């Protein structure tokens, strides 16, 4: 008797999916999910609609809805995937069916692949259910279309990573509850832990520098001088103005400001120095790489005009774009001295768009983590079994 590798995997997947598809809880979960996502999407649509905003609809509504749905899918997917995967092998172990599988021609690898694929397919069901919402968002016509398949694909990949983590832990552990909780903790480590680590790491990237004040000849406000004691404007005689004089000056300035557009390159460094602390986010931005949201957001092509309005001000329409802009800025190190040797330093050192994308690193770290967990779980599936966890029965 011979069992092909793929045939064995396929049979395990079938066994697993048949069981899932026949349990009611699965459909209830999907239904609840659908309702939640529909509510989120509808709320986004309503808040951006004309009736909410006093007669004028927001631009970028579709993009916002789309990114909101995508973000929710990833968030809830990461909540659901551990539950779907972490019980797959531990459950069989406690139900007595694992040993039955092990006693056939199946190899540990086939069992792991099969369980993983089945868990992933089940998790992808949740992604599929949200497609109508995404179609709704796209119907607004302002969604940056190249982003759609990339977000869906990357979300699917991230769910796959979460499922692999769950299956690996499941293979390792003998108690279902332990496996589920551990998987949640590892996923939380990636989503929340990376953020915390990045936040804490910033303390170590601080630097005290001497910086210089800048003035902008085109910006009348920047040329004003204030009295350090009263906070009032200083007149040309160097004396603080009276409130009446001040108001008049402001009115004149406002008139001048009508056609003013801020551009940092117009600014000129002064001799007035001061000390301040800058944070070198670029040194530890890599800590964020393994965050699933960062992996997805970083890989997504953002509408060109998000970066359009000048290098230091981006205005993404939705959360995914915001995450991308935030991470890219951190990566570029936006916080530098204003002036070096009397020269105005403009914007981040590098253009965020030119930076090497971070998601391959993040995905690599995640894959490595999942791989280690699955591989160490595989050792527990090898028969004849050597070491068993205390108190476990093999059958």
């Amino acid at each position, binding site marked *: *008797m011979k069992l092909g590798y793929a045939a064995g995997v396929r049979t395990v997947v*079938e066994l697993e999916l048949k069981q899932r598809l026949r349990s009611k809880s699965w459909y209830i979960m999907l239904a609840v999910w659908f309702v939640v996502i529909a509510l989120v999407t509808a709320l986004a649509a309503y808040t951006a609609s004309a009736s909410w905003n006093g007669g004028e609809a927001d631009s970028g509504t579709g993009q916002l809805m789309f990114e909101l749905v995508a973000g929710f899918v990833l968030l809830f997917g990461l909540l659901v995937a551990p539950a779907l995967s972490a019980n797959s092998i531990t459950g069989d172990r406690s139900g*007595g*069916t694992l*040993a*039955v599988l092990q006693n056939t*021609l199946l190899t540990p690898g086939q069992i792991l692949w099969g369980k993983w694929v089945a868990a992933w397919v089940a998790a992808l069901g949740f992604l599929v259910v949200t497609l109508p919402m995404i179609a709704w968002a796209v119907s607004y016509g302002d969604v940056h279309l190249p982003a759609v398949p990339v977000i869906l694909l990357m979300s699917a990949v991230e769910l796959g990573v979460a499922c692999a983590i769950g299956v690996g832990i499941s293979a390792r552990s003998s108690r279902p509850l332990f496996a589920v909780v551990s998987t949640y903790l590892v996923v939380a480590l990636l989503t929340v832990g990376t953020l915390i680590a990045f936040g804490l790491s910033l303390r170590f990237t601080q630097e005290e520098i001497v910086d210089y004040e800048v003035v902008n000849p085109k910006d009348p406000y920047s040329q004003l001088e204030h009295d350090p004691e009263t906070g009032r404007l200083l007149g040309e005689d160097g004396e603080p103005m009276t409130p009446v004089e001040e108001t008049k000056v402001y009115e004149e300035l406002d008139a001048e400001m009508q056609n003013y557009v801020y551009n940092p390159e117009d600014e000129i460094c002064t001799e007035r120095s001061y000390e301040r602390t800058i944070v070198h986010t670029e040194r530890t931005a890599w800590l964020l790489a393994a965050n699933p949201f960062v992996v997805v957001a970083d890989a997504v092509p953002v509408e060109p005009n998000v970066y359009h309005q000048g290098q230091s001000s981006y205005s993404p329409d939705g959360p995914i774009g915001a995450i991308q802009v935030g991470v890219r800025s951190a990566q570029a190190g936006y916080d530098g001295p204003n002036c070096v040797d009397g020269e105005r330093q403009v914007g981040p050192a590098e253009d965020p768009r030119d930076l090497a994308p971070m998601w391959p690193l993040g995905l690599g770290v995640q894959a490595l983590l999942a791989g280690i967990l699955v591989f160490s779980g595989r050792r527990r599936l090898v*028969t004849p079994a050597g070491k068993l966890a205390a108190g476990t*029965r093999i059958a």
Partner: protein
Amino acid sequence: MPDATEPVALEPVQHDAGIVATGLARAFGAVQAVKQIDFAARPGEVTALIGPNGSGKTTLLLMLASLLKPDAGTVHVGGVNLGDDPRAARPLIGWMPDTLGVWETLTAREILISIGRLYGMDKATSAARADDLLQLVKLADLAAQPSRVLSRGQQQRLSLARALMNDPSILLLDEPASGLDPGARIDLRNLLRKFAGEGRTVVVSSHVLSELDEIADAAVFVAAGRTVRNQTVKEADAQKRRYSVRGLDHEALLDGLTAQGVPYTVPAGQRRAEALVDVATEAQAADVLRLLVEHGVSITAFAPTVGALEETYMSSVYDHESGGSATNPEETEK
């Protein structure tokens, strides 16, 4: 009972078929479930594995089924050394565990077909074999039911069918009769005899000794993780046993026994005309009966007080246990 005259030999000569396990030991943490077990089972025979709870029966069967690695010792199954190539032995082995693992939402038929597929059968072959086996274990009516609605006895029969999916030449059955009704027990007995008749190696562990008496060709007794005794049923029959003799008339029965010089005891508190005699062999038992009949005693019943295997169990395992070395590790027996 074919080929039962020779005592079970443990020489490596037999490695080409059946099961030969020597010097097995296995610990679970601090608990030494199996200390020193030698086990052999030959093709064409039903070998009973007998021992009290926690004696290491299930652990032994797990090692024979290639699921558990022995700490020491070797196992050859169907000529394959499990230490070298456990995977090569899998197609030969049909293992029925003592715990019932069923995929609850799958139907009996689906479970069997899936298992067949995991042995590399194509869908049609697997389905055909599943239907045959469902017929064999009398579950054909319930084939389309989810397995969770099956009763314990029905699940047990499904589990047996599952163990047979790969048409194994080595059958390892861990307490197969538990939960079965009397009719199903008889079916099981006939099945196991049939398998042995087809030249398969059948190993059955059970507590119900009277049942094994009728089907086993050989028995291995284990206690406290050790082999206490290897015995063929011929040997068991040949051992010293106690027979109960009943006659119509108590006085005539005792007179007859005295006249023929047969030592006897009378069971206390027994109102019927009964005497107990110890005989060394079955031949001697036949002699005693013949002499009594020739003496003109009216005999109504003449039979061993207990089954042959029970006699051995009482004389070897029970004595061993009473010696105080028995432990009940939870890892090996529920």
